[in-house]
């Protein structure tokens, strides 16, 4: 018996992602303000809102909806978040083209592909205090959970835990990448904004998928 996630309209899932970012706009900017330039929530919300106007009311596969999200970021906001999240979502989108049902393995492939697209553009490593500190552990634990034969739901929950832990781990890290890296030791003691938005997104993705497991 293999569980699948059934996605009638990919727009609904992407709208979930949009909502979680838009409703955390000020929170994300505030975090960025501590050791960055205070605009992470603004940047993210702007790009995600652009996507909203592009997909609202449409019927799209998840792949198509994610491609819209990627384009909205890449073409709509620039900055670092445009290319970084743009590449992640391109990676997700590319690996599930045409699918309306996703197996654990499909989701695993999707997550891994997003990670590798990101690596193409950013040299960031775990421990650098950036979104990678959330994303990589999330992807890796999901892979491990699938390998260990966990249920879809279990794997998603394991991933959520790993994302949260990853996000929290950034608190004690010294930033090695992005604007905060200029701070050296002074960057310690606060969460990383990108790691926080990434945790929101990974968690929301997991929740949205879990709700559609058939």
């Amino acid at each position, binding site marked *: 018996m293999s569980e699948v996630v059934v996605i009638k309209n990919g727009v609904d899932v992407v709208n979930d992602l949009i909502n979680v970012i838009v409703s955390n706009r000020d929170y994300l*900017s505030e975090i*960025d*303000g501590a*050791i960055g*330039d*205070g*605009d992470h929530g*603004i*940047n993210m919300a*702007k790009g995600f809102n652009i996507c909203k106007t592009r997909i609202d009311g449409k019927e799209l596969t998840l792949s198509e909806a994610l491609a819209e999200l990627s384009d909205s970021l*890449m*073409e*709509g*906001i*620039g*900055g*670092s*978040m*445009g*290319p*970084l999240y743009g590449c992640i979502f391109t990676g997700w989108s590319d690996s599930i083209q045409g699918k309306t049902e996703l197996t654990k393995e499909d989701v695993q492939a999707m997550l891994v592909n997003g990670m590798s697209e990101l690596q193409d*553009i*950013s040299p960031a490593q775990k421990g650098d205090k950036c979104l990678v500190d959330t994303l990589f552990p999330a992807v890796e634990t999901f892979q491990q959970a699938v390998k260990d034969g966990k249920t879809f739901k279990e794997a998603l929950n394991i991933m959520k835990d790993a994302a949260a832990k990853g996000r929290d781990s950034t608190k004690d890290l010294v930033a090695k*990448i*992005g*604007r905060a*890296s*200029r*701070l050296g030791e*002074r960057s310690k003691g606060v969460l990383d904004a990108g790691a926080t938005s990434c945790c929101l997104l990974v968690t929301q993705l997991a929740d949205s998928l879990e709700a559609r497991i058939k």
Partner: protein
Amino acid sequence: MKLNRIINDPNLVVEDAIEGYVAAHPEFFSKTNHERVLKYPSIPQQGKVGIVTGGGSGHEPAFLGYVGKNMVDAVAIGEIFSSPTAGAFLDAMKAADGGAGVACLYGNYAGDNMNVKMAVKKAAAAGITVKTVVANDDVASAPITEKEKRRGVAGEILMWKVGGAAAAAGYDLDGVIAAAQKAIDNCRSIGVGLSSCIIPAVGHPNFNIDNGMMEVGIGHHGEPGINVVPLQPAKEMAATMLEPILTEGIFEAGSEVVVLVSGLGATPTMELYIYYAEVDRILKEKGVKVHRSYVGNYFTSLEMMGVTLSMMKLDDELKKLVDAPVHSLGMVQG
């Protein structure tokens, strides 16, 4: 607390400002089919290397103010303090290409690096050769041993000046790139911040400098510097800022330099000159000869108070290129 600034919708300040630039200065700016790309009207010029730059808004006259004759040909315009999109960089490259390739001269920030990288790839696919120089003149942003991590700041203006003059003089793409690279390699900058600024869409300052304090080495977006110290008189401030620039050893006695002093936005112009007088005095003492100086609001950070100091060491080639005529909003020269 209301934002006491001159804007319409805080989320559309960049769009609204671009309208104003184009309306006020048709002699400098033509629109392109990308709303975040402006170009010099007579561009592309067949056979001339195209000069492209781009960066976040809020630094005016940088970046778009250096579009002009013998300087930048096309510019990609980002949100406030945020890199333009890859698509904007790409369209700027397309606008500037006159068949001799494009030199994309920009500043070392993660976003710009990624967006330019993607744009260069797509430009290549479209048959346009683009080479890049990444400005990293800010001595406060990393030790010399990690020079590749240093930010690009007001030294970028000198890089554009030199690159633009080289292209106008008929240099080929490799020549333009080599000249611009030499310009920025010979350049060192540092900033001091005295007060914060407010991004309209944010609505409150995203960093804080206590009254009576100054942040040595502050970045153009308020990135924290090396040190927060009690405010110094202009004389000491000049010494404090020159120290890390001069220790790098490239400005030895007898060398000729260009000095560029820029306000960060809200510092009264007369104070930039009070500051310059002190820099000039110290350089004279050290036997460093100022060949040319620029003092004014050349590269700002909205309404921050503070000042940046940039110095570029000259050789014969750089001197010729720096002295060449230029005609842009931000810099006009005979």
